[in-house]
């Protein structure tokens, strides 16, 4: 039994097949022209996280898939496709980040945002878990001490809340301020979940206290700085301004850099 070339070529010509349906979305997500999304559990309840080959592109408290997809399209111009769950590595990285591990690397897709916004978010990433800094502190730290209001706006536009902890930036008068992920109530919830004594922070703020000093080290800190919280009651002094502390021979903490808050205040 033999076969001629034409029969064989015709048989080979029928070996083309359709690509699996998952191929095109996979390619587009990998190059960052579309995103995938899934839900994950957070101290604020289930949230949506979206990502692509460039990094995490969104964290949002969307009530349903259609709302999230519409929001995402409006914000990024990209389609988002649901998947069953967040990939293990990303889920683990997010969990570690929420746990306070700032060294864990999470790539972010922040295309379309300004350098100023990125600077603000980068600075927010440096604030440790369980601590807060005033908007003015962020402004001074990124070299734009007058841009306090713009810092607030940039934090409000943070597309990846929780992963970039914009909730750790509060108003200069110590009140909790706005939060993009569901309002001030959620901001309080997440700060408390991170171990911050929110009522104490508010009490100090309401009584005009901006800095805490230790009379043994003569160091001046922001009230939530881990060094300030370590000072025992007998050695703890409260200050309303940097000048007040400096007059009494106190120097600013090198960790929380309270001078940045003082410039802007």
């Amino acid at each position: 039994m033999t076969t001629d070339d034409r029969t064989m070529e015709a048989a080979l010509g029928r070996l083309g097949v359709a690509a699996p349906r998952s191929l095109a979305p996979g390619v587009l997500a990998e190059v960052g022209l579309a995103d995938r999304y899934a839900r994950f559990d957070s101290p604020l309840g289930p949230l949506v996280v979206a990502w692509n080959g460039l990094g995490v592109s969104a964290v949002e408290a969307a009530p349903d898939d259609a709302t999230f997809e519409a929001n995402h399209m409006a914000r990024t111009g990209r389609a988002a496709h649901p998947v069953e769950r967040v990939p293990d590595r990303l889920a683990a990285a997010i969990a570690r980040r929420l746990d306070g591990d700032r060294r864990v690397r999470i790539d972010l897709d922040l295309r379309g945002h300004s350098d100023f916004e990125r600077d603000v978010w980068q600075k927010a990433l440096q604030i440790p878990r369980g601590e807060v800094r005033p908007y003015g502190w962020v402004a001074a730290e990124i070299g734009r001490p007058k841009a306090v209001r713009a810092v607030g706006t940039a934090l409000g536009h943070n597309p990846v809340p929780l992963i970039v902890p914009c909730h750790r930036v509060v108003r200069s008068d110590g009140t909790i301020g706005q939060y993009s992920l569901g309002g001030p109530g959620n901001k309080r919830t997440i700060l408390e979940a991170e171990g911050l004594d929110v009522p104490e922070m508010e009490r100090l703020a309401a009584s005009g206290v901006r800095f805490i000093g230790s009379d043994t080290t003569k160091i001046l800190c922001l009230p939530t700085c881990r060094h300030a919280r370590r000072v025992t009651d007998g050695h703890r002094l409260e200050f309303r301004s940097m000048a007040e502390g400096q007059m009494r021979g106190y120097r600013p903490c090198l960790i929380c850099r309270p001078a940045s808050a003082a410039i802007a205040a």
Partner: protein
Amino acid sequence: MDNDEPLIAALADDLDASFEALVLAHQDRLYSIALRMLGDPRDAEEAAQDGLVRAYRALLGYDAARIRELRLRPWLATIVLNLCRSRLSRRPPPARTALSLDLALPGELEPRVADDRGPAAITATRDAARDWAELLLTLPPAYRSAVVLRHVDGLSYPELAIALDRPEGTVKAQVHRGLALLRTAFEASQRHEREEMTA
């Protein structure tokens, strides 16, 4: 699909806005190439996906003039083919080799009903396609790629010369040699089948 000119113009004009069109236009053929080179659907999807991702990243670095000069069909085929080759080279040596075509035959061949033109014809065609796909996988990769690009993907010889980066005469010879090997394998499989039926 054969005329990529509008697509290439669109890619040169706005890569991000038109890349999805490239994916949709070429995904079936690139997946088919990968599947016929690798045999495994999961492997093939990964290779095709990886190839398209690499294509996008390459295009990102090209200026508009360079994109306009691209021969998209062979260019994409080359990318996917290279990925298939590296996947094949990472695999453990196969149990059956091309050197022993007559002895070691694809095991999954099902009896073919040669004269059947009746109701079972569709099933027979599907079986035949699987048989040919199995036989293709017994070819050495160099001949397999030439035959796959020419006869499964339908590239012309000039396109094939670009895709394989060989003179046209060389790729023609590779295709012919590949077909000859394939015919030998096919005939051996038929012989094997007859022997099994009379055993």
